[in-house]
């Protein structure tokens, strides 16, 4: 069955991989330590042309009503932005179009430690873009209060590692206000942005991925963008969503991920995954930073460097792996994942958080229930170990492309 799948999809796989190879053969930057492999800076998953950007799947222009034809791209412009610029652009639009919108958090007024709010205080005034004291529970509670009054509160927690003092406000208040008031109150206007995931040298308290801690908090939404276009569209979607949203921004992508980003007001759908590379032999599911490690892993699988050749059976090199970016962790897009796994019969989930009670645990439980008879291999999880992120050991804790390709080989040859 696997062989048949591989033959059917060989063309698709080669097509997907060839982009990466071409890109690398003409890369200006020196090759990364791992050899000629794609990384964030030259990823084919990033939309570097105007046309590609404007045709991002699921894009919805806010100035269009639903009646017109979809994907009207004529006359629209894009601008080259990295992720923090795209986040800033989204907040600028929210502030411009919605007079109740405010942006606040620690060190936000001077532009934020990751530069996401640069110039916003100057543009919109300190009444709308302001510093708060160092109190995450205060920030969350304040945002809930504004949202209770029907205002749009865009709060920043400086690192997601520091969100836990706000846990009570988020989980017991923001998530439950609508239910406990029988729908008479809600805090849909609240969006909490916070940087997440590792950068390689952050240690215990600048590397965590807390998405799964919020996964059981019914009433919340949890979103993680992978790129500038995604960040802008999903953030605007989150700000306008009728529910409180935790918006986790992978911090290593703030500067490294660059795309042409439509300058108009648009949103991307929450609760919806995106299939980045179609395939038929295995589903590779991830979100945030590891999206790019997965891309590298696909490349290693298709054309391993000489040193790894012996570990990648020739028969698997033309395997067609479907890469899906989950994007929303809560609610997560079970339909897209189920449909994919029913087709491929295999699922590898990658996330940076630890394995035990990570988001992958929930997903694999649900998928094995729905796809039990279609599975050709156990659902595999490539995750951080169940450890705090020890600074000097990060390269061996956070999953990289090698661990992903190793899991792909094992799963494909199970």
């Amino acid at each position, binding site marked *: 069955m696997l062989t048949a799948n591989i033959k059917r999809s060989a063309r698709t796989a080669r097509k997907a991989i060839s982009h990466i190879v071409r890109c690398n053969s003409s890369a200006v930057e020196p090759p990364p*330590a*791992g*050899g000629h492999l794609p990384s964030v800076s030259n990823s084919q998953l990033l939309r570097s042309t105007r046309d590609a950007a404007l045709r991002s799947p699921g894009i919805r222009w806010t100035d269009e009503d639903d009646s017109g034809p979809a994907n009207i791209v004529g006359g629209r412009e894009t601008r080259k932005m990295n992720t923090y610029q795209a986040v800033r652009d989204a907040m600028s639009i929210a502030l411009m179009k919605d007079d109740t919108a405010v942006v606040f958090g*620690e*060190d936000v*007024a*001077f*532009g934020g*430690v990751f530069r996401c709010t640069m110039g916003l205080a100057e543009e919109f005034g300190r009444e709308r873009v302001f*510093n708060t*004291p*160092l*109190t*995450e*529970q*205060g920030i969350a509670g304040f945002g809930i209060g504004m949202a209770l009054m029907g205002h749009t509160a865009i709060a920043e927690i400086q690192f997601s*590692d*520091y969100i*836990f*003092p706000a846990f009570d406000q988020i989980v017991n208040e923001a998530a439950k206000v609508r239910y406990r008031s029988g729908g008479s109150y809600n805090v849909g206007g609240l969006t909490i942005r916070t940087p997440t995931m590792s950068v390689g*040298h*952050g*240690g*215990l*308290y*600048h590397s965590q991925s807390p998405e799964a801690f919020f996964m059981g908090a019914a009433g919340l939404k949890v979103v993680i963008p992978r790129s500038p276009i995604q960040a802008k569209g999903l953030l605007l979607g989150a700000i306008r969503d009728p529910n409180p949203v935790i918006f986790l921004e992978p911090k290593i992508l703030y500067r490294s991920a660059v795309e042409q980003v439509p300058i108009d007001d648009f949103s991307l759908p929450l609760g919806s995954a995106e299939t980045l590379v179609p395939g038929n032999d295995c589903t590779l599911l991830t979100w945030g930073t590891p999206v790019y490690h997965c891309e590298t892993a696909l490349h290693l699988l298709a054309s391993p460097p000489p*040193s*790894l050749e012996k*570990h990648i059976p020739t028969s698997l090199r033309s395997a067609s792996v479907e890469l899906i970016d989950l994007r929303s962790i809560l609610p997560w897009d079970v339909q897209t994942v189920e449909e994919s796994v029913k087709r491929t019969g295999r699922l590898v989930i990658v996330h940076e958080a630890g*394995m*035990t009670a990570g988001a992958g645990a929930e997903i694999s439980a649900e998928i094995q229930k729905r796809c039990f008879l279609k599975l050709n291999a156990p659902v595999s999880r490539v995750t951080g*170990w*169940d*450890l*705090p992120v*020890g*600074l*000097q*050991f990060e*390269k*061996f*804790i956070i999953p*990289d492309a*090698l*661990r992903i390709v*190793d899991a792909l080989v094992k799963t494909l040859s199970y």
Partner: protein
Amino acid sequence: MIRSAPSSIVFRAGQVRRIASAAGKDYGRLPHSNSPIVSKLKFFNAVSGDGNTIPTYRVLDGVGKPLEGAELPEIDRALARKVYEHMQLLPTLDTVLYNVQRQGKISFYMTSHGEEATIIGSAAALELDDEVLGGHGYPLPPVFALTSFNRAIPRNRGSSLAYGLDNVMAQCFGNEEDTASKGKQMPVHLSSPKYHFHTISSPLATQIPQAAGVAYALRRIPSRRSRSIAACYFGEGAASEGDFHAGLLMASTIPSPALFIARNNGFAISTPSSEQFYGDGIASRGPGYGIHTIRVDGNDVLAVMSAVKEARKRCLEEGRAVLIEAMTYRVGHHSTSDDSFAYRARAEVEDWKKIDNPITRFRLFLESQGWWDAQAEEELKDRLKADVMKAFKRAESLPKPELKELFTDVYGGEEPWNLKEQRAELQGLLRKYGNEWEPWKAEIGRFRNKARDLID
């Protein structure tokens, strides 16, 4: 507004009290409070009755001359020189490690430029077996000062100040000699049970309620009761966290000899203290919790020493918490991740360095006493620089800890199955790919024994 009837009578604790009507007379008491009853509608918004700002205690003026009426702490030539040498060590160490970080040799660093008097003055007034809880932002200096200050120092290490430097460097480099975190923590996150210095956490203010618990435990240890306190350091930014309020409340309500040392240096990363609180600094909060409080000039090392010494005494005598707010100015950037000229003028910082340099202030005092001169200054600077460079070069040359440390110290007692299995999984991956996957191959070589401890 309803006035009390002059003849009304309240019954309280078996007493019958007659309530008088004239102003200033006794109107009786509320059931659970000693609050006097008054007939005037009056709001208040100050700790002092007269509405004045809380004063700042100072001993030496800007040029190192004792203020009129100020009492100097007990200090002789030897102690004064020792304090000064330690104050000079901080910027020497900071300058080297800041540059080392800029060269990419360590991942992060935080300096304490401009705050030398608060750090060294407070450390000099603590006892070696006081428990110290530091925080992210001010982690390094207290332990360094303590480890090197109040100990008999082995002379064969070249110089007295070199003691402790190797430990500090080892932690910043996360090398095999890093006993503070075995390579697990970011630089300047020290810990040392030997010197009663508790492990540093990056999350802010978490140490503040912990200090209350530490102090309460000290009360319950017969040999340490009335002998040791818990000294807890944090910045004015951390005092905004809920943990600050929780910690002071716990320490005062459940009486605990905790000394809270708030270092108000004017900035929490970019946020000026004017946006951090609207009240009268951190000191105004102490009385709210019934805690003895003093505000001290944190750039005056003698004032800091006196205040901490007296505060420590009160902690022990009363078994209760004390709060010190040390007023200083963060001359350096918040950390190596920060460029403070994005939110404050370079000239402001340069001016402040000239107007009020705590090191200069104390040096002028020493010189006025005939305890210091230009030659001693030159010798000290050369020696400190040599010591720091030596420790830096040594730390740089050492490998990282054994790779197996990555899985140690998660649990005490029996290791759970998931960690056992995950270690085995990593072991298998390293055996299979360790020599072939470039990013790992290069990294493995940096660990002690080239990670053989885990691979074999």
